[in-house]
């Protein structure tokens, strides 16, 4: 049993990260129109609890892989807002010097091993990374994040099969917003339940529909324990609602491919607001919450300004890091 103190501490940590990610993305929304962040933004807004809950359950040395929609995952794993905004602006101060952009974040020092904008293509890479961890017997876990669209790709199934065959220490995380761009699952699938199919493989598969980062943290922690005990890969399908358009920073409910009512239903349980309320219920003072929020906002604002004001890298950088 957790004491109230440790539970508050955990929830405070979760809130800090949720609020940080939301603030970063709101900053992007506010400034994207200035046309200086020239990189296609696939926003995480609405999905924050998944990355935050899971990364909380991981250890710093564990590895993650993401997709073009990885703002939340990157920030949850690295906490590095300087690097984040510098890369959004493509500046010299970013560790990638603008070669990646929003779709290709990477921070190996923090265990963020890369993100791919080709649907499903990082999944086998994550499996290979897990194989190396297993060989090294270093106890590290790999978590690979992908959308529901990735399950349409052969590569996902090939990777799941290989990981189950080889009993790799890998957690597959399907961030399910029900859409691939604008196409719902009902138009893409010849089966009804992904988890039903996946659970026929030798892995431990769970699913959940929640915006509660703590619940996702608990679920993931338990799953990781079971994975370790049973020496099997894990699979998590977590539902969420994508707040904004597929790519870009606007809402597009008027396009008619999904209903605003559904969004409103989800928004009642917005992961950030929900977590804030939880802190209050746990007896955490509103003043303290506000102080924390101000602190985060100031930090984000500093990172943002630094990035905006930084210079671009030398043109000679173009040819660097192709081959050793």
């Amino acid at each position, binding site marked *: 049993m957790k004491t109230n103190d440790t539970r508050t501490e955990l929830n405070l940590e979760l809130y800090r990260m949720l609020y940080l990610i939301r603030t970063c993305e709101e900053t992007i929304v506010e400034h994207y129109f200035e046309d200086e962040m020239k990189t296609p933004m696939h926003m995480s807004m609405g999905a924050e609890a998944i990355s935050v809950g899971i990364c909380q359950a991981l250890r710093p040395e564990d590895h993650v892989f993401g997709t073009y929609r990885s703002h939340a995952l990157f920030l949850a794993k690295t906490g590095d807002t300087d690097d984040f905004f510098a890369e959004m602006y493509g500046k010299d101060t970013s560790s990638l010097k603008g070669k990646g952009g929003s779709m290709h974040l990477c921070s190996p020092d923090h265990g963020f091993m*890369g993100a791919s904008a080709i649907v499903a293509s990082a999944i086998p*890479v994550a499996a*290979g990374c897990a194989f190396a961890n297993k060989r*090294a017997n270093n106890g590290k876990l790999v978590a690979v994040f992908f959308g529901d669209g990735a399950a349409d790709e052969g590569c996902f199934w090939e*990777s799941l*099969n*290989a990981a189950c065959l080889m009993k790799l220490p890998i957690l597959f995380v399907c961030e399910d917003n029900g859409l691939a761009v604008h196409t719902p699952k009902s138009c893409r699938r010849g089966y009804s339940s992904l988890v039903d199919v996946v659970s026929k493989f030798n892995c431990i598969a769970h699913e959940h529909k929640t915006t509660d980062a703590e619940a996702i943290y608990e679920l993931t922690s338990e799953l990781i324990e079971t994975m370790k005990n049973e020496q099997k890969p894990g699979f998590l399908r977590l539902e969420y609602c994508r707040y904004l358009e597929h790519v870009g920073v606007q809402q597009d409910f008027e396009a008619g491919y999904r209903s605003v009512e559904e969004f409103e239903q989800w928004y009642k349980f917005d992961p950030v607001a929900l977590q804030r309320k939880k802190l209050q219920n746990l007896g955490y003072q509103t003043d303290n919450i506000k102080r924390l929020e101000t602190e985060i906002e100031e930090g984000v604002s500093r990172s943002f300004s630094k990035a905006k004001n930084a210079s671009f890298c030398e043109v000679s950088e173009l040819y660097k890091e192709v081959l*050793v």
Partner: protein
Amino acid sequence: MRNISYCEALNEAMAQEMQADPDVFVYGIDVADHKRVFGSTKGLLEKFGPDRCFSTPLSEDAMTGFGLGAAINGLRPIHVHMRVDFMLLAMNQLANMISSYRYMSAGRLEVPMVIRAVIGRGWGQAFQHSKTMHCCFAHIPGLKVVMPTTPRDAKETLVAAIRDDNPVISIEHRWLYDVEDEVPEEVEPTFLGHGRVLKQGCDITVVATSWMNIEALKAAEILAKHGVSVEVIDPVSICPLDEELITDSVTKTGHCIVADNDWVYAGFGAELAAIVSEKCFGTLKSPVARIGFAQTPCPTVRHLEQEFYPNAIDIIETIEQKLDLEETDLSGEDFYSYENKFKGPF
């Protein structure tokens, strides 16, 4: 020095490197079955165990990405494909992932991965078991591509490829597997990008790839009897390319023929022709000529296949045209017929 086969040379390279470096492992479809990829992975399972030599599901795409993931996390994978054609299922991982992983991590992640793939020919290999594709791979920045011809180069390039911190694709012609030659037991530390003059000559330069070197050497041998001196150059490495070796030779001879083990159109021969005309324009006595496969899918039936593949006679005829020679008397010449050796099926 002892003579061993091309296949044994590949096997020795892997065995020695696996012995020297516990991070090296070899995997792929049927790598550990009793046939051991035509014998090239023989003994590796017994010596290094199933963790370092294993067969995989038939998932070329995922297992290629798997190698990438292992490579960026400290291991040195060797992925083997029984045919280049099968590797095409992994084109996404090659072109979108492996080639750019170092770049997208700003050099913080390295990809010391080797992909070996075999070119088939003859005995009904047909259009899905006979491709080379080196020009397609070499087209993509971030990949190295080698195509050794001699047993010695097979060993040296594979050792160098395994030690290389970049992804390297090694393309091996099935017909070369039984060729025997001198191969050193210990390989000097070497790096990729050295071409080799397989035969020195002063009248004309033939740059040939993979099996086409065997044909070029045969052509050179026959023409030598008629007083024509052909220089045969094997680039060995397609990317990086030993340009200087080639341009020096062409500067000397003034003529260049590219005999590529591939289709001609938009191929490696076109690249080489461009390089040679850019760098040797003033010294060229004739335009660069290209020899390669017929611009068709590869047929199964023998007499059409014969027509599909270029051979030593095609090279001789092209040389005759370039040097304005009389038609060479080929009666009594014994042309290498590989079918005396390669009885299929694969």
